[in-house]
């Protein structure tokens, strides 16, 4: 899986550089999120702007990261989700589980 990792405003920002998250690359995402959670206690922000398709394994990878972060009293936020992808969170009610922001600046503002 291609992604970009940067530190901004005391947050770890993971930008997914894939149009598609499915069972072929979701294990990579899960492993990367686990590593980020273990590395530090800063909030993790996952930018999904480029993602136009996600399947159940992709949602599972994000959920895994969310649970791991919570277990360490950290947090994982999702930003810039395209509407068709957001629909998948709504069908599974995961939009009630994740902290989701329209833009990254809103996510930053919520941390301050």
């Amino acid at each position, binding site marked *: 899986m291609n992604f970009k990792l940067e530190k901004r405003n005391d947050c770890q920002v993971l930008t997914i550089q894939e149009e*598609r998250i*499915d*069972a*072929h690359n979701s294990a990579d995402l899960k492993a990367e999120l686990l590593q980020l959670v273990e590395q530090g206690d800063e909030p993790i922000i996952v930018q999904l702007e480029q993602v136009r*398709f996600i*399947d*159940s*394994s992709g*949602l*599972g*990878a994000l*959920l*895994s990261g969310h649970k791991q972060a919570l277990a360490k009293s950290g947090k994982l936020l999702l930003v810039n989700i395209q509407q*068709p992808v957001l*629909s*998948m969170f709504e*069908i*599974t*009610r*995961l939009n*009630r*589980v994740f902290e989701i922001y329209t833009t990254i600046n809103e996510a930053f503002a919520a941390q301050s």
Partner: protein
Amino acid sequence: MSPAIIQVDVIIPTQTRYLDLIGSIGEHIAKEVDSYAGDREALAYHLNLVLTEATANAIKHAHDKEAKDTVRICIHIEEKQLTIKVYDHGQGFDLEAVAKPDFDHPKENGMGLFFIKTLMDSVTYTQQADGNVLEIIKYL
């Protein structure tokens, strides 16, 4: 003029790298369904998703991970009905035993079949001596 019949038959190795190909076929087919009155963009995503989930499931349950093992996917559209059949040679599973997700305590697994059941109109899984078939129907 009678409505067009479309049939697509694909055989792939049991490898997840082919999920994108299968899903893309679903997206393209959604654009060919002239009679569909609903949201065509949503149908395109849903067919992509359902084909991806069903194929990933077949790959996961494949008997062995040898390259010679394959999954066959058959998509048939006729008049007001779209039928997807996914054939696998794995040990099979009990469709009825797959629990609905617990929305208050979500788990990482088990959402795939939930998507298929939720987005499509009929789902059956039949185990036979020469292989299993997951049959999915969507009324258009």
